């Protein structure tokens, strides 16, 4: 597996909970961006010649604010530099305002075959609280168009919102099942440093569910989605068989990916060594660097074998399928137990947080639900 991530760093307005690298700008010159992406693609292609692309992901920000032509140019550049797998997945993140939904056909024509729509909530009061620029009706219309336009679609919801009771969330989830295709992302609201929500929350303007309540909401989510044939394949991601996001699986299975655009991250294996790449976050600076150097990345970060091991474990345990033990040897030349003694696993196994077979290590649902603690027990 080998994926290309393209970061579009702009949004129409900034949501108060969001700490993604996104910016609001009056005017964006789409041609300039198309050119810059093309150049950076060229740069990374030279470093990863022998690879076959299995997925492309336009993320953001709000990449549905791109002109479909811009997306088409980028896809063309990718096709020019790498061979593409026959079943290559090309996803675009979209916001469900009417302007964007009306562009879906254009994106389809540009080569996009999957959209992920940021619905976030199924009632207008909560959408307003989340600072969203769309209503519930607009979101449902966008989902209709998506269903009719693309082969596959998914949407996002944010839960554990202020005053959200377990009953309310369950009802909302059951309603969501009516609109769902083969994939759904359900994220628990995180209060991120540096966001307006952080200040408001610290000040006591609103409260969010406690740890126990959050746990209950998570458990409800697992149960309802399981019942509807959309089990979690990752902590916050649900899909019916075969409908998983291949691009995101690439991250979690710890295969290589290229990150294009401001603030985009990549992991590349060059001559057997792993490097981490990271683009400058500010759009203008990134553009400038690309113009000068052909890429907008900070100096690469060398990832040593211990770190490769840690990253593989961190990412892989998010997946219900777990990690094939052979992957550790493939990635680091050494087996799992050279990094973590069996005794350490044993207590996690006893607690029911982990299962370990001859071939695979997996975090159970209880384990995944406490993955931060689990990882710090194993790694820190």
């Amino acid at each position, binding site marked *: 597996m080998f994926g290309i*991530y393209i970061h579009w760093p702009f949004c129409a307005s900034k949501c108060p909970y969001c700490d993604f690298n996104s910016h609001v700008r009056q005017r964006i010159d789409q041609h300039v961006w198309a050119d810059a992406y093309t150049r950076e693609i060229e740069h990374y292609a030279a470093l990863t010649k022998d690879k076959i692309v299995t997925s492309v992901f336009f*993320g953001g920000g709000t990449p549905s604010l791109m002109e479909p032509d811009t997306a088409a140019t980028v896809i063309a550049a990718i096709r020019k530099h790498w061979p593409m797998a026959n079943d290559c997945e090309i996803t675009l993140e979209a916001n469900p305002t009417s302007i964007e939904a009306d562009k879906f056909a254009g994106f389809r024509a540009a080569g996009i075959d999957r959209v992920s729509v940021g619905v976030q909530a199924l009632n207008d009061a909560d959408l307003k609280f989340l600072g969203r620029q769309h209503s519930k009706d607009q979101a449902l219309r966008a989902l209709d168009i998506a269903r009719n336009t693309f082969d596959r679609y998914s949407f996002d919801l944010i839960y554990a919102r202020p005053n959200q009771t377990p009953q309310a969330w369950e009802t909302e989830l059951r309603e969501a099942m009516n609109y769902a295709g083969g994939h759904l*992302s359900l*994220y*628990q609201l*995180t209060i991120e440093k540096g966001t307006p929500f952080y200040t408001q929350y610290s000040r006591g303007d609103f409260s969010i569910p406690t*740890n*126990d309540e*959050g*746990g*209950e909401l*998570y458990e409800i989510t697992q149960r309802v989605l399981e019942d509807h044939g959309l089990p979690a394949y990752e*902590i*916050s*991601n649900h899909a019916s068989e075969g409908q998983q996001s291949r691009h*995101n699986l690439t*991250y979690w299975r710890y295969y290589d*990916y290229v*990150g294009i655009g401001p603030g*985009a*991250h*990549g*992991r590349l294996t060059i001559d057997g060594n792993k490097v*981490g790449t*990271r683009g400058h976050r500010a759009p203008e600076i990134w553009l400038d660097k690309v113009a000068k150097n052909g890429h907008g990345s900070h100096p690469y*970060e060398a990832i040593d074998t211990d*770190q490769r091991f*840690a*990253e593989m474990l*961190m*990412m892989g345990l998010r997946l219900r399928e777990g990690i094939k033990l052979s992957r550790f040897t493939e990635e680091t030349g050494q087996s799992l137990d050279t990094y973590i003694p069996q005794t350490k696993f044993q*207590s996690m196994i006893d*607690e029911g*947080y982990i299962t370990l077979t001859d071939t695979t290590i997996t975090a159970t649902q209880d384990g*995944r*639900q*406490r*993955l*931060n*603690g*689990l*990882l*710090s*027990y194993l*790694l*820190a």
Partner: protein
Amino acid sequence: MTKKLSEIRNFAIIAHIDHGKSTLADRLIQHCGGLTDREMREQVLDNMELEQERGITIKAQTVRLMYTAKDGIEYQLNLMDTPGHVDFSYEVSRSLASCEGSILVVDASQGVEAQTLANVYQAIDNDHEIVPVINKIDLPAAEPDRVQQEIEDVIGIPADDAVHASAKTGQGIEELLEAVVTKLPPPREGDAEAPTKALLVDSWYDPYLGVMILVRVIDGYLKKGMKAYFMGTKAAREIDRVGIFGPKPTMVDALGPGEMGFITAGIKDISETLVGDTITEERKRCEKPLAGFKPSVPMVFCSLFPTDNGEYEKLRDSIGKLKLNDAALHYEPENSQALGMGFRCGFLGLLHMEIIQERLDREFDLDLIPTAPSVVYMIHKTDGTIQELYNPVDMPDVVKIKEIHEPWINATILTPDEYLGGLLTLCEERRGVQIDLTYAGERAMLKYKLPLNEVVFDFYDRLKSISRGYASFDYELAEYAKGDLVKMEVLVNAEPVDALAMVVPRDQAERRGRMLCERLKDLIPRQMFKIAVQAAIGGKVIARETISAMRKDVTAKCYGGDVSRKRKLLEKQKKGKKKMRQYGNVEIPQSAFIAALKMGDE
């Protein structure tokens, strides 16, 4: 030239804290011209920074004054300022043993207090003549006549010719010096021809002069170049300096019978000097050594751990440095599972403990975690042996214990009548047994027997807060007595937390155990696993709390390909884990134990 015995007076100044002992000493020095006015610094004798700041004298100090009395004779007065606090009564007793008389200072507005009594009784035990001084008569609230009466009633010594003085204005100083010369006796014995015999009163390390030895000569002379023989340590050393404090160190040719001063003998380490030792001449030794002193015994113990485990070495060096000048400080390394490497330390009392902790903090910049103070228990074992228990952790198995004995004290409390009720309640709560209750004017004098263990904790603070600061308190060690005591352990996931082990009266164990468990429940963050916190006596659980496992602990949001951020978070956590302690599967932040220890016993 050394003085005739009849022209020498050796005396101590004793007083309750803050009654003006040090100020009065300064005034005497100034009057006798020991220092010019310009050199006169407030309380020249309290030369340790901390002593000055807290206004307490820790080590005994001595100074030689030359005073020409009304009879025309120039007298040599050797004055010792003694520590006022009960913790240092051992040092007081040493000072008193090397003098023949005492000036008893009593504050004209406060009257007799608990330490006035304790000190005066010690002076009487040492056959001292006593000159009472009623100080601070310049204060508007001074009631010298009432205080004079109190001295007679409460202490039982004549006070009709007490000197009325003000160390502040200088009033009565001349009169006091006359009283010293006329009322206090000269040294009782002293034979200039006999072999040298001198008492080693104290010793300390001076960065310039090495170990300085404070001496009181009985017979013969101490001279520079003389080969001295230390009878206790059996060491021969050549004396390289002989001097006196005036109060500045000044070299003299010799110290003769009855005189006090210092010598140095090329000694680098004070552990080579033995307080109470007899110094004689190597070639011409005296026959019998002096009685000497009982060694000081630490009464209160606690463990000190560096908050940052990396500072263990620094702590070791720092305690070592303090020990150089504080023979009463005891310490040995201790390895705690909960708190890492540190030291089990023994102190004379609570103030001593506090001062050492403060000096480590201030002078050595160490951030320390002290465990709860504890006393020394005597464990009478079934096999007939007796074990001295310095640390609750070392308590033998219950089946091996026949009886546990704990130290008791005789406490004296003086208090204005209105606080008596509250103080009686306090003493009863602390398992006290009332011995006596009498009145001295409007003040009650309470005598109680109390377990020292009940006092080491916060008794003094409680006493002061109940009485709004008016009650005074002093104690002396009484005897050991059998107690119904048990070792209470705190277990986290069935593993004992050594730093939290304590010895408690059986009938209080459950209440204290429950309290400690509840507190820990609040302090220990929820984790991956259920955590059981228990208090237990001899394996039997008497209180328990459960900290349930975290129900959810995972970052939900997708960060796309930003793996470094998460990994770095974990790497940072790994560093933070140095401050964690492992109990079974569970890691408990050291800070939780520290907080539990700090919260005291409410």
